[in-house]
């Protein structure tokens, strides 16, 4: 079951930077001693996703917890091996490269894909000072640089991320920094590897609301300078919109392991083509006075289904206010609606059997 590929807007050369083709990532749940002879429960974290990342690209992934966005993100940067499907870096399969079967060395790929974590408290080694933590990436990428030159780079990057005086911050331990400062150090550490793609896994969710814009601005400023793409994971649609819009990228909406809608932020938000995107929109807090009296949620159930047993057909049919009988049986593919806007819903096809099908009764 292959899906239409989602092409990045500007890919240099013939191969996109990262190309993910119909991957599945399934986890087996741990079994206790008594269940040893039963079939293991399988969590379908990611099921059949294809997406491309270009140079200097921004892809924002949104969805509820359990939708697989973190797993997809980690697969994109090569920290998670897919159970099915393939992922390529500049045309070479990453996991084949790890086995030594391509012309690239895995070290090169590994160092060009980096991550910034959600929790600032555990993203830095508490026993090492900042200068030591930041020396590590330089030592890996430029082993022949002198200690003095290393320091210069560290101080200069600390200043770039807004931590001055740099030598004071560099000699501190992580517990002496605030959450926002720790995240900036994590960003600096990722950038010092001079990566091609950085995965920002809910990187701003742990920061205070008033600090989030600052952090996103910082990431976008440095993106141009370091020529890096971002995969920005967020459960908050307004943050994803800010980041994707300023970065001239796309927003991808995920639900229970599927990519259900992908497109430019403005179009996705003003004219969502998938009912789930509408639900996310409804849930996003809004300061406009008239919108604060929002009505009931545009979905039939609050709780998300168990990823071990995803619903049949279209996975959203158990909560979708527009669901009909055909949605229970068939799963919609990610269809191209316009240039770079894709959605996986029968409603976007005026000729589909959906329109003759009966609505679902609860």
């Amino acid at each position: 079951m292959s899906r239409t590929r989602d092409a990045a807007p500007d890919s240099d050369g013939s191969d996109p930077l990262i190309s993910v083709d119909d991957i599945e990532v399934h986890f087996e749940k741990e079994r206790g001693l008594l269940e040893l002879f039963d079939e293991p429960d399988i969590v379908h974290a990611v099921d059949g996703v294809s997406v491309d990342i270009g140079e200097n690209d921004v892809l924002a992934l949104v969805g509820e917890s359990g939708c697989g966005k973190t797993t997809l993100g980690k697969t994109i940067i090569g920290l998670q091996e897919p159970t099915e499907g393939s992922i390529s870096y500049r045309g070479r399969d990453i996991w084949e490269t790890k086995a030594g079967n391509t012309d690239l060395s895995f070290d090169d790929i590994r160092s060009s894909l980096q991550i910034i974590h959600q929790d600032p408290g555990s993203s830095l080694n508490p026993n090492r000072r900042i200068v030591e933590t930041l020396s590590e990436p330089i030592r890996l990428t430029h082993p022949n640089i002198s200690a003095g030159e290393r320091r210069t780079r560290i101080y200069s990057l600390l200043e770039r991320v807004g931590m001055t005086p740099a030598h004071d911050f560099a000699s501190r331990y992580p517990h002496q920094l605030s959450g926002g400062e720790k995240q900036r150090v994590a960003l600096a550490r990722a950038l010092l590897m001079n990566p091609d793609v950085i995965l920002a896994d809910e990187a701003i969710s742990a920061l205070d609301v008033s600090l989030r814009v600052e952090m996103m601005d910082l990431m976008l400023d440095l993106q141009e300078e370091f020529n890096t793409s971002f995969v920005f994971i967020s459960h908050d649609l307004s943050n994803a919109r800010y980041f994707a819009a300023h970065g001239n990228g796309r927003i991808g909406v995920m639900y229970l392991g599927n990519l259900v809608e992908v497109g430019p932020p403005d179009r996705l938000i003003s004219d969502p083509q998938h009912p789930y995107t509408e639900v996310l929109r409804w849930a996003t807090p809004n300061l406009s006075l008239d919108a604060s009296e929002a009505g009931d949620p545009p979905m039939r159930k609050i709780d998300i289904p168990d990823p071990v047993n995803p619903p049949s057909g279209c996975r959203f049919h158990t909560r979708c206010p527009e669901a009909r009988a055909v949605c229970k049986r068939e799963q919609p593919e990610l269809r191209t609606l316009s240039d770079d806007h894709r959605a996986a819903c029968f409603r976007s096809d005026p000729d589909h059997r959906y329109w003759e099908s009966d609505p679902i009764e609860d």
Partner: protein
Amino acid sequence: MTTTSDRLHRAGDGVSDPILEVKNASVTYDDGDTYVLDDVTFSIERNEILGVVGESGSGKSMLASALLDAIPAPGHLSGEVLYHPDQDTTIDVLEFSDAELNEYRWAEVSMVFQGAMSSFNPTMKVGAHFKDTLKAHDRAVPEGLEFAREILSDLYLDPERVLDSYPHELSGGMQQRALIALSLLLEPEVLVMDEPTAALDLLMQRSILLLLEDIKEKYDVTMVFITHDLPLVASLADRMAVMYAFELVEAGPRDQLIGDSAHPYTRALLNSTPNIDAPLEDMQPIPGKSPAPVNVPTGCSYADRCPLASDTCRQQDPAFEAVREEHTVACHHWERAAEEIGLTFGEAASIDGDAGGDPR
């Protein structure tokens, strides 16, 4: 530090039937050198939802603990916390004996903590928590559990399944709702919630907010919702209060606080949060950071980051003034705040037009 006189505050705050009043509440460590709550005075109207907004490090969690007289030692709470179970009775919470405090907590004023995951005992089933609470307050267990089942189904949970599960078997959203049910178990008058939706994702947050409205109607509770996320509580609250550097800086009805706030910090806060409808260019972070308890400056604590700051601000702590009926603010230059700091969202943006000043 000034003494926020309750005469001034009473004149302006428009609370006619307070259920809880906090007067000059201060929490200090180190015997009076450092304050983590600085002379806070405000009232909570019966059956309203009060939203208290502040960054982390503004003292809001201390405020929550103060309402239950639960400041952890070696902190010391001074001032008054007055509870009015009905219009004619006044009880000073801080004068309670231990037995009275036990009865007050959870049965009169109850609390929902941040991080449901760490609020439950992982070795006990959820139902056991409910039973423990009932027994600790000498309530009949079977009737109490019946009531618990009712609350749980109001929160869209399956009562039997939830009561029979261990906390880790439930999702984050379910744990948080179970915690809310636990806090309502003894039918309290006031529910204090400290970041109850912090670790949850968007849909769950929004759904829980809607549920809280229903709960408030059905169970007749007053709610105090404390958070750093202003847009989140804006849809729920009747009145709002803003805290900065351990002090209260502005309080008033929600519509006025969002559409026509008078304190520069409130306006900057509104501008700094990414809003789904706001034009992208106008979002601005607030430069600088809030002071640690040892570093709170004399005079107005926001002066360092305020575009309207003058010498008066740096020397004198502003007193509360009434912007209009029910809306009070502690700022020397609040009249100019509206012109100088434009708001960047929705109707407010079209009202203020190009007056958007640059707080940088």
